[in-house]
């Protein structure tokens, strides 16, 4: 039982640190290249639609 408690505590510590690392990555600013890419893709699609592709 004590072993289970320790294991649970270990998992908790690991997950807390994991979430902190992950959150740091989430907080990074998304580079413009991805926003540019998405608007390019959208632009292409709209041009395609105008040319009458279904």
């Amino acid at each position, binding site marked *: 039982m*004590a*072993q289970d408690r*320790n*294991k649970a*505590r*270990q*998992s908790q*510590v*690991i*997950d*807390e*640190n*994991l*979430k*902190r*690392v*992950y959150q740091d*990555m*989430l*907080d*990074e600013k*998304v*580079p413009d*290249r*991805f*926003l540019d*890419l*998405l608007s390019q*893709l*959208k632009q292409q*699609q709209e041009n395609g639609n105008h040319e009458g592709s279904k």
Partner: protein
Amino acid sequence: MSGDPRDEIVEHLPALRAFALSLTRNGALADDMVQDSLVKAWTKIDSYQPGTNMRAWLFTILRNTYYSNRRKAGREVADVDGIYTASLSEKPAHDGRLQMTDFHAAFAKLNDEQREALILVGASGFSYEEAANMCGVAVGTIKSRTNRARARLAQLMHLDMGEALEMTDGATLAVISGNRTASVG
């Protein structure tokens, strides 16, 4: 009136990058993978079922890209951030906040499948079932991957939690001490 689901992709960009970075541990490689995944997601939007979890769908595309690249490369991507590994020695502070460089280093030592399972379940908040679907494996497989990943991290971080080490059985102790000896050289 339902909009184009593709307009929602942008909301998941930070998460997609974080997932890519967790898998590759290499900024340039991660961003290339995100780029490929975005193009794939855009062109294969028909395979997305509106109303389902778009983040899970995008993550699935990204991991498929990663593993197919890895297969093409013929072997597992090397420990690109191996520099960190050298600093993997300090014990965690007593408040449980680990040294971040050490944690990164330990995290990088997990195999791809373990790291992925841990990020999906431990950090991103997906359920075991969702993670199993995304990885195309059984729920039990995801559970055992996350458990093994946590155990390995605890071991790499010397996260013995005081008396926990005394409670550990002999076999595990042997593994731990064996690894220490091996890593010292």
